């Protein structure tokens, strides 16, 4: 399940940071060149991600809507927790280790 920022949007944010804030501070020619190469590589990642089909969040929207409406049958928490755990494996895998 996707969330924002998408991988593509994250790549874009990194490109802007490197190009806008780091690159201008580099005075070493070799380092500048390698930064430009790295940014080029990020561009490739960006375009590859852009080519992927958009993720469908209809199921999550339906679940959120039901909970908002007060429809919370037994098992909802377990389901929701499992979904969050799956997202955390991508977003912050070491965070789960903090729970005894």
């Amino acid at each position, binding site marked *: 399940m996707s969330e924002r920022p998408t991988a593509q949007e994250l790549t874009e944010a990194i490109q802007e940071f490197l190009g806008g804030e780091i690159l201008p501070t580099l005075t070493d020619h070799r380092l500048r060149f390698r930064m430009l190469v790295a940014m080029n590589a990020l561009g490739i990642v960006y375009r590859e991600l852009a080519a992927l089909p958009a993720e469908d969040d209809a199921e999550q929207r339906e679940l959120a809507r039901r909970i908002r409406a007060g429809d919370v049958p037994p098992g909802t928490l377990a389901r929701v927790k499992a*979904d969050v755990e799956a997202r955390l494996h991508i977003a912050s895998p070491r965070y789960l280790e903090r729970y005894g």
Partner: protein
Amino acid sequence: MIADVREAFQAAVTEALGREVEISEPVLLAGGASKEAWAVDADGEPLLVRRAAVGVIHRHTLSLAHEFEVLRAAFETGVKVPRPYGYVADLAGREAFVMERLEGETIGRRIVQKPELEAARGLLPAQLAEELAKVHAIPAERLPFLTAAAIERMVEELDEVDEPHPAIELGLWWLRENRPPARQPVVCHGDFRIGNVVVDEHGLVGLLDWEFAHLDDPVRDLSFGLVRAWRFGMDSRRLGGIGDVEPYLERYNELTGLEVRPEELDYWELAGNVAWAIGCLTQAQRHLSGLDRSVELAILGRLGSEVEYEICHLLERAAA
């Protein structure tokens, strides 16, 4: 620094202090999206100039002028805060105010971890309770512009983000189903946690960042610092990563007579997590909307999942 801006600082500090002074070169300490913090010395006296940055203020934060009023009220009622000097309507085109620059540690991770602050951490629970009790005693009439907050405001913010977050919805649902009896609203700091306090070897030096001040249930303010995200890695110390909740609650109850029960803290700790989970999303939206392009803001959209996991964890415990 550009000469005009330097002159503008000179004029602002002179105006705020009410006397001619020689200022040092202003140093930008932190350039948050909505606020700037400049360190400047006036005849050697350490000052901090808080100045509006370019761009829209967060919704539900006070204007700089109102924030300054809250700081003044807190100072006058004896809360440990930087001494406020003066509000300046125009410092090189933007509002600002001048206050004392407190010496000490403000970085959460360092307050929680530095060995030199071990003794200070032992003192903090009682000291934090003492200052918060004073804040909650500030008469609301003194600050007539403060508004009341409600859980509904959080829901509005979530709706504006327009993304599905079932864990947050579940948290909101539980909060609605399990509301404790409402307490009389008081003046609240609004962001009372490690990260917004100055600490030195003697303990608490002062409270900072009053932009989220508002009227609310005092226990909400009391519990915000318990949120796991604000323990800076020291998860086992429920009070801001620095200590236990019991001495903090006991001292607060002693001073206020409010007889806050541990279950109320649990409730509002969950509410604090829900608020911060939504906060992560709105911060990410500032980047995604183009208002403030920043990779630190962007990534909060993903790190919000940590807070959602904590919400699930707290809900499991509540059901047990």
